[in-house]
């Protein structure tokens, strides 16, 4: 029984420690500003009906599982919100809200603005390549 989508969305993720967002003292724990941004955007988009929340969760869990299968459990490079952001990009493309190419070129503009990152000639791989979570 839920009256608020935010409540439903967060509660639905509390079933497993891997899937649940980091939290401390009853609060969501955000270490970086962009984490808040992708958290809020994912919930807002699903709340507005752009994609099913469960679809987003499946993508998130898929990303977490793939990370786990290719890293040691105590690997310190573990980054929950990185998996979240991947899932969000995938969900946005799948739902047809944005095209993968749009995201890439917008990202290029953002990175070019910063002007401090040296890229090799082909830093980007296609976002669409990651779109469909495997059913395995």
């Amino acid at each position, binding site marked *: 029984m839920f009256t608020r989508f935010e409540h439903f969305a967060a509660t639905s993720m509390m079933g497993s420690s891997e899937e649940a967002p980091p939290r401390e003292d*009853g609060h969501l724990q955000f270490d970086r500003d962009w984490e808040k941004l992708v958290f809020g955007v994912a919930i807002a988009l699903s709340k507005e009906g*752009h994609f099913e929340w469960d679809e987003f969760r499946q993508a998130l869990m898929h990303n977490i599982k793939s990370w786990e299968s290719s890293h040691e459990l105590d690997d310190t490079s573990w980054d929950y919100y990185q998996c979240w952001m991947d899932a969000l990009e995938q969900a946005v493309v799948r739902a047809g809200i944005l095209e993968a190419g749009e995201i890439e070129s917008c990202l290029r503009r953002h990175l070019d603005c910063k002007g401090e990152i040296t890229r090799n000639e082909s830093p980007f791989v296609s976002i669409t390549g990651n779109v469909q979570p495997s059913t395995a």
Partner: protein
Amino acid sequence: MTSLYPGFRYDADKEAISEARAKALESLLIEKGVITGKTVDQVLSYFDTEMGPFNGAKLVARAWVDPEFKKLLLEDCNAACEMLDLPNGMSGAEGEHMRIVENTADVHNVVVCTLCSCYPWPTLGLPPYWFKDPTFRARVVREPRVVLGEFGVQLSDSVNIRIWDSSAQIRWWVLPMRPEGTESLSEEELAKLLTPEAMMGVALVKAKSE
């Protein structure tokens, strides 16, 4: 996971890219009118204000200073929520099954739950990691004194321990004992001493927060 952007190898780059990816996504969505600049803040403010341990803390602190309110809180948690002008959701559907049990010199209460939706989060916020652990739940039922000891809660043998299993019907939480030496504290100061753990029964409230 295969990196989407294998050209970047350093942590600093990784951070800059993460930030840029999030901002790129947001700006495109705003540009297309899918979201507004306020969307993210609106979502986050729900978590900051509508639900969290601060709500439980307010209720407990008031109960400590006001015996009539305490009576009401124990008898009808929802009516008590309404009196404190807490967010609507708390006395509505989400919180309608909340019940609070009082710790005394003779009885110590601990809450557990098996389903994530049963946690009384309008008053306690999001559950901690260990709370969902089946081992924790099984052990706290079997050997509560030992488990509480591991949390740093030492109870004398004369104290009865009661375990409350939250369900979709009733979400239990705990009214902790007011610590000694807090007679001069205001209601607001008292509220600051409370933690989600204390309101789950796996911690005692300390006179000074450490």
